[in-house]
């Protein structure tokens, strides 16, 4: 690793040239954070986030332009089939670790837009990987996410809507044999909470199926899911 700390020491002065250098260094640090996520370098992501804080980078920038940028690249590598699920899981662990470091640095009150997403894999389906990545990216994207886990019955979504409230209910299923649960969940929750918007995704769900079931949002992958969620709330 290039010695970032010594560069930061140089930055302490205020001449114009050095300010440019500071900006370059900030960019470099963000790129390294993104790269740490892509290379699932769990070991060094903390130190890089610490470097970012020392270099005066806004913690939200470190999250969005560092960690999330990296995860977006990971999504691309997964879509192009260069990365498999093992890589994606380790990248997500790395992102999580970075988030744990950075979260306490984010001033309270500015980190979310306040929209609340209730997410879960539908009843009868225990697949968690894709749902967890979507959850992670939604959090990074500024949403408040309540994860009900896997094999979630419609009643659990209803309870959460009643007690915590939700702007979006995001449903996932991987199996063709549990599509029916997705429909039942949308029917029941939508019946009681007409203002809630639904997002649907997962291997067995097509855009048409999602629409037919009454989901306004459908996304192929986690990066798309954040865009779709933002679109629904705008």
């Amino acid at each position, binding site marked *: 690793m290039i010695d970032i700390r010594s560069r930061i020491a140089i930055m302490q002065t205020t001449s114009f040239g050095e300010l440019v250098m500071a900006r370059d260094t900030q960019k470099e640090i963000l790129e390294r954070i993104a790269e740490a996520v892509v290379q699932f370098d769990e070991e060094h992501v903390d130190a890089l986030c610490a470097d970012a804080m020392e270099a005066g980078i806004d913690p939200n920038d470190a999250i969005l332009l560092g960690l999330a940028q990296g995860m977006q690249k990971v999504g691309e590598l997964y879509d192009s089939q260069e990365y498999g699920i*093992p890589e994606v*899981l380790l990248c997500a662990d790395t992102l999580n670790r970075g988030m744990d470091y950075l979260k306490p640095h984010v001033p309270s009150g500015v980190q979310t837009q306040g929209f609340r997403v209730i997410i879960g894999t539908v009843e009868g389906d225990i697949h968690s990987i894709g749902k967890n990545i979507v959850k992670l990216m939604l959090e990074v994207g500024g949403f408040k996410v309540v994860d009900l886990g896997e094999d979630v019955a419609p009643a659990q979504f209803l309870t959460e809507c009643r007690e915590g409230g939700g702007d979006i209910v995001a449903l996932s299923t991987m199996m063709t044999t549990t*599509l029916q649960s997705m429909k039942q969940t949308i029917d029941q929750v939508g019946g009681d909470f007409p203002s809630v918007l639904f997002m649907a995704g997962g291997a067995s769900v097509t855009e048409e199926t999602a629409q037919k079931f009454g989901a306004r949002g459908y996304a192929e992958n986690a990066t798309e899911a954040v865009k779709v969620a933002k679109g629904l709330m705008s």
Partner: protein
Amino acid sequence: MKMLSPKEELIRMLGGENIGYFPRSIPVFTPVVDMMEKTGSFFPKANYEAEPMAKLALAAHELGGWNCVMLPWASTVEMEALGCEVVNRDNDRAGYPQFKKKAFADAYDVRLPQDILGRGSFPAVFEATKLVRQSIDRNYDGGIPIVSMFQGPFTIASYIIGVNDMYKHVIRDEKRAAHVLDKVSDLNILYGERMLEKGGDVILMSDPAAEGLTGEQFSKLLLPVYRKITDALKGKKMVHICGRTARIAPHLPETGFHGFSFDSSGVDIEQLREVVGNSLTLIGSVPTVTHLLEGSKEDVIEVSEDMIRRGTDILSPSCGLPQFAPLENIRAMADAITKWNSERGMNA
């Protein structure tokens, strides 16, 4: 030209022979509700008791016209016997048993009990296979093939030690991953052999979790395990992996499986054929959701003909059937094959 029996057709097709017409067996089957109602065999019983299991298995041919029978269907048979917590909902007569909790805290804890084949629903599967064999020998002169299905090693491994752990071991702790796969493949072989003894004709191994691996990971970790299984089991063998399998496809001809049941939603047949050539019999791939569940009879016939035209060797659904797919759509696949053959002067 005289037609062979559907069983002979399937076996010869898997052997890479040209039989001169399109084979009539549709091998990858899971029951639909219409069949449960007509046979009076519902879940969960039909996943745990031999008689309803056999009745529902025979429905593939007797109600669906599929010229083939496949059992069992639940992906939980092995994991439940290995100690995973699995639940069935009393009020859900079409729902599969649901995995709840993994069986082992650590990969190195995985062991096969001596009496493993006496546990869980294994005995029911063996008894049902025997019943189906008797019925087919009696009523169809043995000419309808029985496909014996088991879950592949990576999928079982993922459930018994936890799916996240298993995938991460592939990169971080390959020895642990290999240990689990070795133990599980011992079970695959024992179980497969026993099903064949009880009357199964052809093996189908379903290993959906393998889709998550890159080509390199598949080749390094899973290929030797697949080879171990195919070397040990007699007869013709098919493997089903759903999803985006283009990156593992180049390694499939080396696995020792004769046929690959692919998922058209994840990979195009043309792409597959280019990679595997004629070294593998391609099986598939009528989309389960857009056509079998949501489409009309005509849609199913059209997409089936399209699949045959594009070069599939054996027609089959792309994955497990959604339980609410209507029976007439299931039948339409068989109708498409009959139509195809009769338009070319072949009639049974």
